[in-house]
């Protein structure tokens, strides 16, 4: 039966992944009533397939507000982790010891230097990083292999257990009164004089504000409320090993050891549409790079592989915008839901609640893709 949901919350959040639940949790902390409408198990669910980095280094090359925004989130992260632990008892295992990007050629290292020094200049110097030669790197990471010729390091990077994060956000928001509706598919959103009527498979939901945080679903939803979010899938494949004794105490861009001892390998990017299957050739390439990085992993046993679809905009940067045509409708979409979780809870939520837009965010309007002469750059 399809009817009107009785209680109208202050805000409807469409999407119960890392982005939607972080915003919903932040809104609940601001004192608003919130309903989160989450898709069923058939969704693509990038939040259940990601790598778990809280990563800053190198991001924002070509759009420096993204570097500031990512940095701001990483600085807010300890507070988020502490609140989630206090409110839910779930330790999301945040560690921010800094991170390494290992390089296998002089060209790669030169590219790191160019990227990071440009970002440092654009951020007025407030962007610490080091470039390490092979000898310096081995003093910090004794396990690196002989083919690694150097690395970039920044103290800004870290990692977290992403599945515990998703669980903690779900738990924390509901403890603060957020209503979670699972298995709801949203088709139409109709602006009306009271706000928005969000038509689901099971009910029509109404609220004066709506946040679109539906991942790949934002593409079709946003146009209905005067927003533009042309996101498309970008596939990443991941391998995870058995648990082994701790040997790697820092995250790297493509290999990290988790809080519970397993080793994750990743960082592939493919544009293959809505296909979230793994492929042997890509998995083999990822594994080879991992073993070249840390030869002691040659004999480690893999226990699982998977693929997930990043929510990717044409330039790889996030999209944050309130609709000019229908104020009260917001789109919040990105491919770094882990890194940006703290910014979403602590800076996006107050904006949605009626506060000022965070200073970095005007650069992320979806309308940028419609401007004449727009040239996409890659954010990753």
């Amino acid at each position, binding site marked *: 039966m399809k009817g009107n949901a009785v209680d109208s919350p202050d805000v409807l959040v469409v999407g119960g992944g890392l982005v939607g639940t972080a915003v919903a949790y932040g809104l609940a902390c601001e004192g608003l009533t919130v309903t989160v409408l989450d898709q069923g198990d058939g969704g693509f669910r990038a939040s259940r397939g990601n790598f778990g980095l809280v990563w800053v280094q190198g991001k924002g090359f070509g759009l420096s507000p993204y570097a500031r925004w990512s940095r701001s989130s990483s600085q807010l992260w300890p507070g988020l982790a502490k609140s989630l632990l206090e409110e839910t008892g779930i330790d999301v295992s945040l560690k921010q010891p800094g991170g390494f990007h290992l390089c296998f050629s002089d060209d790669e290292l030169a590219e790191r230097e160019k990227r990071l020094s440009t970002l440092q200049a654009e951020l007025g110097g407030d962007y610490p990083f080091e470039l390490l030669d092979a000898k310096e790197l081995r003093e910090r990471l004794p396990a690196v292999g002989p083919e690694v010729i150097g690395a970039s390091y920044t103290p800004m990077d870290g990692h977290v257990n992403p599945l515990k994060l998703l669980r903690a956000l779900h738990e924390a928001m509901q403890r603060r009164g957020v209503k979670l509706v699972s298995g709801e598919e949203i088709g139409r959103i109709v602006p009306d004089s009271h706000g928005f009527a969000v038509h689901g498979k099971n009910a029509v939901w109404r609220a004066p504000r709506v946040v679109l945080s539906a991942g790949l679903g934002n593409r079709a939803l946003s146009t209905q409320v005067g927003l533009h979010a042309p996101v498309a899938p970008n596939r990443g494949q991941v391998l995870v090993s*058995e648990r082994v*004794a701790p040997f790697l105490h820092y995250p790297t861009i493509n290999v990290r050891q988790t809080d519970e*001892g397993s080793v994750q390998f990743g960082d592939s990017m493919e544009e293959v549409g809505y296909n979230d299957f793994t492929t042997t050739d890509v998995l083999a390439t990822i594994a*080879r790079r991992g073993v*070249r990085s840390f030869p002691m992993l040659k*004999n480690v046993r893999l226990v699982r592989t998977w693929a997930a679809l990043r929510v990717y905009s044409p330039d790889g940067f996030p999209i944050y915008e309130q609709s000019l045509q229908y104020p009260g409708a917001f789109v919040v979409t990105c491919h770094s839901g882990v890194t940006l979780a703290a910014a979403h809870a602590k800076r996006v939520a107050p904006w949605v609640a009626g506060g000022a837009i965070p200073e970095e965010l005007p650069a992320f309007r979806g309308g940028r893709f419609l401007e004449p002469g727009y040239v996409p750059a890659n954010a990753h």
Partner: protein
Amino acid sequence: MTSKPLFRVLAPVAPAVADDIVQIWFNDEPLKVPGGRSVAAALLAAGVQRFRATPVSGAPRAPYCMMGACFECLVEIDGVPSRQSCLVSVRDGMRIHSQEGASDLPPMSYETKESVHGR
């Protein structure tokens, strides 16, 4: 939660096809177990209930799925850690140890450099 083992060995279809008994060691204790089955099945038949301790909490574990999916049955077999005992056939003379926590990675050796052909 029960700690009573749910595993039981079915009687052979006919005595003629009964499997030979093999000699193995589990944590240095000699065991005579029926052959022709996995290490996990043989150890369970011999009454072993604790195969390993988890790396996270140290809790005891024993086989669960018996088909290679759950990784609960890890043991060290002939010096190789973290083997899935449900996927390895039991053989006479095997030295098996419970898997205590996370295994160490093999020591780093530059001789194992794998990229000799520019792979």
